C-alpha cells in the first residue's frame, strides 16, 4: 500500500459514481430497460430523421459525383444560345476527343388535330458520349433516329405518347417534316432536373431538325458541343485552353465536375429545411426524453435518498445518474444514426425516379456522426433538469415522502447555468453545421419562440382549468384535476404533441395558401397562353389569327432576347457581392426586352423612363428587388451578353415586379435604340375561353408552325407537382415530430398509469361503473387533446401566416382542411392513447390497490 499513491477525492468521487451507475444500469438492463424505452424511441427517432436527411443528401451528391460524366453527358461542354459555334470552334473542340453536337429547343408536335408542346433534342451519331440513354425497344439511338420508310425516326418519352395517344410506329409532324415514333426513352441521364421543363422529350437527328426548318435565326435554340476527353486528360485544363483559344463571351463552359448544378442546389436547399424539420422532431423527442428521465428519477428517489443517508455526496449521485443517462443516450443516438444512415437504401428507387440520379451506396459516416452528436447534446439538455433535481433531493424524503419522487425540487443554480450552456451548444451546433446559417438561426429563434408561446399558452389554460368552478359532477371534476393538478404531464404533452402538430399545420397551411394563391391568380390575372418564338415578320399574321377567333384576346406582346448579366458595375457578376436570393438572376441567360413606353403592370419606383425617341448611351430599366440584392441603384451599370455582344447599360429606372402573376414580366428592359437592330423573336400572351383553347392552339400552329404555344394551366400543373413534392417531404419530416409527440404522450400515460389504476379502484369502491370511469379519464384526454389542438392550430397558423406574409410575400388564407387534419390528429392521438391507458387500468382488479400496506 505504501508504494501506491492514494487516489484523490475527485478521482474517488468519479469512481464511486461509476460504481453506482454500473449497478443501477445492471438493474435497468435486467428489466429490459423498461423505463427507458420511450426515452430511447424519442431520441432515436429524431437522430434517425437527421441522419436520414444527411445520408440521403450524401448519397445523392456522391451519386452525382460518381455519375458526373453520365449526368453531364461529357467531360467538357460548351454551350451557346441562339447561334451555332463557328466551324473553327467546332473543329477545335472535335480535336479534344470524342465529340457530339446537340441542339435543344421547344416546339409543337402536330398529331392530326392535336398540338403537343415538345422539348426537342437533336443529336448526331456521337450521342451519347457516356451512355445513359436507354430506349425501348433496346436499339441504338442512331438506328432509332435514322431516316427510313420516307420519314425520320424519333425517340420520345412515355409522357409524349400519353398526351398524344400515339404509340411506337405512329407518325407525327414537326413543322415541315414527318417523324415516326421508333422507341420510347426510358432513361436520359443528361436531361438534368429542369424545375419547369415543359413538354415531354422528343429526340431526333440533326437532319430531322433541319428538315423541320425550326432552327431559324432568332429561334430559341441551345447548342451544346460536348467532348469525352482521352483518359488522363484534365477537363479543367481543356476548359482553360478552350477559353484562351476563343474569347467568346457567349460560351458557357462546364466540366463534368459541375454536373447537375440545379439538382445540387435543390438538394442543398431541401436538405437544409429537412434537417431543420428533423431537428424539430428531435427537440420534440427531447421533451419525451425529459419526461422519461423524470419518471425514472421519481422511481429512483428512494435509492438516491438512501445513498444520501449513507453519506454519498450530492454531486456523486448527480454524476452516477448522468453517466447512466449518457450511456443510454449514446445507445439511442447510435441506433438512430444507423437507422437513418440506412434510409437512402430504402429510398434509392423513389429518388432515382424523381431526381434521375442513381444513389451512391457509400455509408455517410459524417452525417451519422453529426446526427448522433445532436442526439447526445439534446439528451444532455433535456435530462439535466430532472438529474439536477435528484441531486438536491432531501434525504428526509426517504421518510414517508419517497412517493413524491423529485417533484417540486429546483436544481442548484450552477446546474441551471450548465443547462443554459447545453442549450446554447445545441443551438450553435444547429447553426454552425447548416449550409445557410441565417436560415438555421431563424429556425432556432422560431423554435424558441414557438416553445415559449406554447408553454405560456398551455400554462394559462391549465391555470384556467384549475380555477374553474368545481362543479359538473365527479367525472368532470376528476378529469379537470387530472389536467391541472401539480406535476400533471399536461404541459409536456401539449408541448411535445403540439409542437409537432404546429409544425405540420404550418407546412400544410403554407402549402394551402400558396396553392390557393396559384388558383386565384390563374382564375383572375393569368393569361391562358404564352406564345414564344414568333418571328417579327409573323407578328401581323399572328395578330390577325387571334382577332379572327371569338373569345380570344391578345393581352400583350413584346420583343424578346435571351441575355446573361456578365458584369455589375464593371465587376464580373460571379465575383460581385450579391445576396443569395438574387443569385439566380446571374446564373443563366434570362429573357429581356426593349420598349419605348413603360409597361403598365410594373410601376416605376425610382428614376425616370426614357423618352420614346431616345437615342444615346444604352439605358436599362431594372427590377427594384434584384437591384437591391445586387446592391446597385440608379446610375449604376449592368453589362449584358446579348448574342455574343457585350452591352453595358446604365440603370435609368427601377420597377416593382410581381413574378407570381403569370403575366408577361421582364426584369430587364433596355431602350429600343440599343436593341432593336438585334435579331429577336416576339413573346405574346393571350386569354381564351376554355372552349376556344384547342382551336386557338391549332389555328396558330397551323399557320405558324415554328411558334410554341404554352398553356399556363400546364405550367401550373408542373408548379403544383413540385409544390406537392416539396410539401410532401416537409410534411413527412414534420410527421416525425408528431410521432415523437405521440411517443411523449404514450410515455406520460405510462408514467401516470399507477395513478390511473388507483383512481379507477377508488371510483369502483365508490360505486362507479366502467362506463363512468372511462368517461372520467376520457374527458381528461379529450380536454388535453382539445387544448393541444387549439394551441397547435393557433401557433401553426401564426407560423404559416409569418412565412406566407413575410417570406413568400403573398396573402395568407386560413385553410380549414389544413387546420382540421392536425387538430383531428391531436384529438385522436390523445383520446386513443388515453383510452388504451384506461382500458389497461380497468383490466386490473381493484383489490391489490386497496389492500393495507
Amino acid at each position: 500500500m505504501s508504494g501506491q499513491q492514494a487516489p484523490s477525492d475527485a478521482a474517488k468521487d468519479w469512481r464511486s459514481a461509476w460504481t453506482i451507475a454500473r449497478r443501477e444500469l445492471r438493474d435497468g438492463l435486467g428489466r429490459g430497460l423498461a423505463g427507458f424505452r420511450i426515452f430511447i424511441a424519442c431520441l432515436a427517432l429524431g437522430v434517425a430523421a437527421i441522419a436520414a436527411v444527411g445520408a440521403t443528401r450524401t448519397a445523392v451528391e456522391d451519386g452525382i459525383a460518381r455519375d458526373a460524366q453520365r449526368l453531364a453527358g461529357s467531360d467538357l461542354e460548351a454551350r451557346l444560345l441562339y447561334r451555332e459555334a463557328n466551324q473553327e470552334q467546332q473543329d477545335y473542340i472535335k480535336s479534344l476527343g470524342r465529340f457530339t453536337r446537340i441542339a435543344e429547343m421547344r416546339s409543337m408536335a402536330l398529331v392530326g388535330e392535336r398540338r403537343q408542346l415538345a422539348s426537342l433534342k437533336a443529336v448526331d451519331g456521337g450521342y451519347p458520349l457516356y451512355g445513359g440513354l436507354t430506349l425501348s425497344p433496346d436499339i441504338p439511338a442512331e438506328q432509332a433516329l435514322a431516316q427510313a420508310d420516307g420519314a425520320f425516326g424519333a425517340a420520345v418519352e412515355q409522357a409524349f405518347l400519353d398526351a398524344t395517344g400515339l404509340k411506337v410506329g405512329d407518325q407525327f409532324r414537326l413543322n415541315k417534316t414527318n417523324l415516326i415514333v421508333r422507341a420510347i426513352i426510358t432513361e436520359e441521364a443528361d436531361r438534368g432536373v429542369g424545375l419547369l421543363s415543359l413538354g415531354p422529350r422528343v429526340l431526333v437527328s440533326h437532319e430531322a431538325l433541319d428538315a423541320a426548318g425550326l432552327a431559324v435565326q432568332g429561334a430559341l435554340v441551345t447548342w451544346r458541343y460536348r467532348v469525352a476527353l482521352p483518359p488522363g486528360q484534365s477537363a479543367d485544363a481543356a476548359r482553360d485552353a478552350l477559353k484562351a483559344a476563343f474569347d467568346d463571351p457567349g460560351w458557357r463552359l462546364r466540366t463534368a465536375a459541375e454536373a447537375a448544378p440545379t439538382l445540387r442546389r435543390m438538394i442543398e436547399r431541401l436538405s437544409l429545411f429537412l434537417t431543420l424539420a428533423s431537428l424539430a422532431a428531435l427537440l420534440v423527442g427531447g421533451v419525451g426524453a425529459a419526461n422519461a428521465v423524470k419518471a425514472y428519477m421519481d422511481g429512483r428517489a428512494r435509492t438516491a435518498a438512501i445513498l444520501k443517508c449513507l453519506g454519498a455526496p450530492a454531486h456523486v449521485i448527480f454524476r452516477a445518474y448522468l453517466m447512466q443517462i449518457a450511456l443510454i443516450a449514446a445507445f439511442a443516438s447510435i441506433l438512430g444514426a444507423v437507422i437513418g444512415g440506412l434510409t437512402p437504401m430504402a429510398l434509392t428507387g423513389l429518388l432515382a425516379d424523381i431526381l434521375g440520379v442513381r444513389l451512391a451506396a457509400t455509408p455517410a459516416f459524417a452525417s451519422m456522426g453529426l446526427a448522433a452528436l445532436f442526439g447526445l447534446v439534446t439528451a444532455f439538455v433535456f435530462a439535466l433538469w430532472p438529474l439536477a433535481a435528484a441531486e438536491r433531493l432531501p434525504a428526509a424524503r426517504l421518510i414517508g415522502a419517497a412517493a413524491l419522487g423529485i417533484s417540486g425540487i429546483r436544481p442548484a443554480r450552477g446546474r441551471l447555468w450548465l443547462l443554459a450552456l447545453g442549450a446554447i451548444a445545441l443551438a450553435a451546433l444547429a447553426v454552425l453545421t447548416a449550409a445557410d446559417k441565417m436560415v438555421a438561426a431563424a429556425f432556432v429563434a422560431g423554435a424558441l419562440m414557438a416553445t415559449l408561446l406554447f408553454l405560456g399558452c398551455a400554462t394559462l389554460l391549465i391555470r384556467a382549468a384549475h380555477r374553474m368552478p368545481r362543479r359538473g359532477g365527479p367525472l368532470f371534476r376528476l378529469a379537470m384535476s387530472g389536467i391541472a393538478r401539480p406535476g400533471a404531464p399536461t404541459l409536456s404533452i401539449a408541448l411535445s404533441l403540439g409542437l409537432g402538430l404546429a409544425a405540420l399545420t404550418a407546412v400544410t397551411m403554407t402549402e394551402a395558401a400558396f396553392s390557393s394563391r396559384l388558383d386565384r391568380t390563374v382564375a383572375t390575372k393569368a393569361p391562358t397562353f404564352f406564345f414564344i418564338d414568333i418571328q417579327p415578320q409573323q407578328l401581323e399574321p399572328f395578330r390577325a389569327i387571334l382577332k379572327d377567333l371569338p373569345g380570344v384576346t391578345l393581352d400583350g406582346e413584346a420583343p424578346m432576347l435571351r441575355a446573361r448579366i456578365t458584369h455589375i458595375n464593371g465587376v464580373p457578376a460571379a465575383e460581385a457581392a450579391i445576396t443569395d436570393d438574387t443569385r439566380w438572376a446571374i446564373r443563366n441567360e434570362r429573357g429581356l426586352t426593349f420598349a419605348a413606353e413603360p409597361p403598365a403592370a410594373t410601376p416605376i419606383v425610382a428614376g425616370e423612363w426614357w423618352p420614346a425617341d431616345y437615342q444615346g448611351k444604352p439605358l436599362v430599366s431594372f427590377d427594384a428587388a434584384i437591384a437591391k440584392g445586387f446592391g446597385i441603384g440608379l446610375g449604376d451599370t449592368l453589362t449584358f451578353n446579348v448574342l455574343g455582344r457585350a452591352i453595358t447599360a446604365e440603370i435609368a429606372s427601377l420597377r416593382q415586379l410581381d413574378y407570381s402573376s403569370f403575366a408577361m414580366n421582364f426584369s430587364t428592359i433596355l431602350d429600343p435604340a440599343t436593341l432593336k437592330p438585334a435579331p429577336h423573336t416576339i413573346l405574346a400572351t393571350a386569354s381564351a375561353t376554355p372552349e376556344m383553347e384547342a382551336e386557338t392552339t391549332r389555328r396558330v400552329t397551323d399557320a405558324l408552325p415554328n411558334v410554341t404555344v404554352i398553356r399556363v394551366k400546364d405550367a401550373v400543373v408542373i408548379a403544383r407537382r413540385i409544390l406537392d413534392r416539396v410539401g410532401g417531404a416537409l410534411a413527412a419530416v414534420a410527421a416525425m415530430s408528431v410521432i415523437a409527440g405521440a411517443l411523449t404522450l404514450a410515455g406520460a400515460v405510462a408514467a401516470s398509469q399507477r395513478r390511473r389504476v388507483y383512481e379507477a379502484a377508488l371510483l369502483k369502491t365508490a360505486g362507479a361503473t366502467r362506463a363512468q370511469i372511462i368517461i372520467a379519464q376520457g374527458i381528461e384526454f379529450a380536454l388535453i387533446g382539445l387544448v393541444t389542438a387549439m394551441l397547435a392550430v393557433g401557433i401553426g397558423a401564426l407560423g404559416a401566416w409569418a412565412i406566407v406574409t413575410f417570406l413568400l410575400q403573398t396573402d395568407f388564407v386560413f385553410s380549414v382542411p389544413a387546420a382540421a387534419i392536425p387538430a383531428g390528429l391531436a384529438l385522436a392521438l390523445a383520446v386513443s392513447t388515453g383510452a388504451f391507458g384506461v382500458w389497461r387500468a380497468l383490466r386490473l382488479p381493484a383489490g391489490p390497490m386497496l389492500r393495507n400496506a
Partner: protein
Amino acid sequence: MPDLAIDLQDVRLNLESDAGEVNVLRGVNFKVNAGETVSLVGPSGSGKSSLLLVTAGLEPATSGQVHVGGRDLTVLGEDARARFRRERIGFVFQAFHLIPSMTALENIATPLELAGRWDAHDRAAAALADVGLSERAGHLPSQLSGGEQQRVAIARAFAGDADILLADEPTGNLDGETGAAIVELMFAQAAIKKAALLLVTHDTALAARCTRQFRMADGQVSEA
C-alpha cells in the same frame, strides 16, 4: 329470524401470484345480521381484507355463495355490483383512500353524484357536519391530518343510504387517542343509521366492542 346483511357460504378465493396460485379464502361460511356489529380478527395474511373485498363485490369469489343485503353478488356483473355498492355499502380503509385531487366535500359527494343524486352536495355537507368537519369542506386530503381524513372517509361511507359498513383496520394508521375517537364516531354513526358493521382489526379490545367476534386463520372463519 332477523334479516341477514351478509351471508357467505363456502366462499373460496384463489388468486394468481408470481409464485403460483394462492388459496386466500378456503370455504368461508359467515353471516352478519342487519344492524349487527361484528369483528374479524386474525394474523396478517389470513385473508381478512380479501373477505371484505369479496363482500363488497370488489373481488369476485372463485366459488361459493355471496349474498349481501339480500342480493346474490355472484350473479351480478361488474357494473351491477358497482351500482349495488354505491347504494348499500360504505367502506372505511386503514389508508383512508380519499381521492387526492378532490376536496373533503367532493370526496363525500362522489358516490352520491355517481348515483345521480341531485342533493349530493347537500347530503355530503350534512355528513361532513355529522363528523364535525364542516370547516374543512374545501380542504384537499393532503391538507388534512390522518384522523381528519378518516373522519371524511366515515362521512363518505354514511353519506348515502348504506346499511352495511365494511371497515378494514380503520385505526391502523392513527395514534391511540385519535383512533379511539374514530371508533366512537364509527360505532355511533352505524347505530344512528342502523347499519351492520363488519370490522376487521388487530385490536382485541376494539373487537370486543362488537356484538359478535370472529377469528380468521388460513383462509377460514370461526366464531371466537
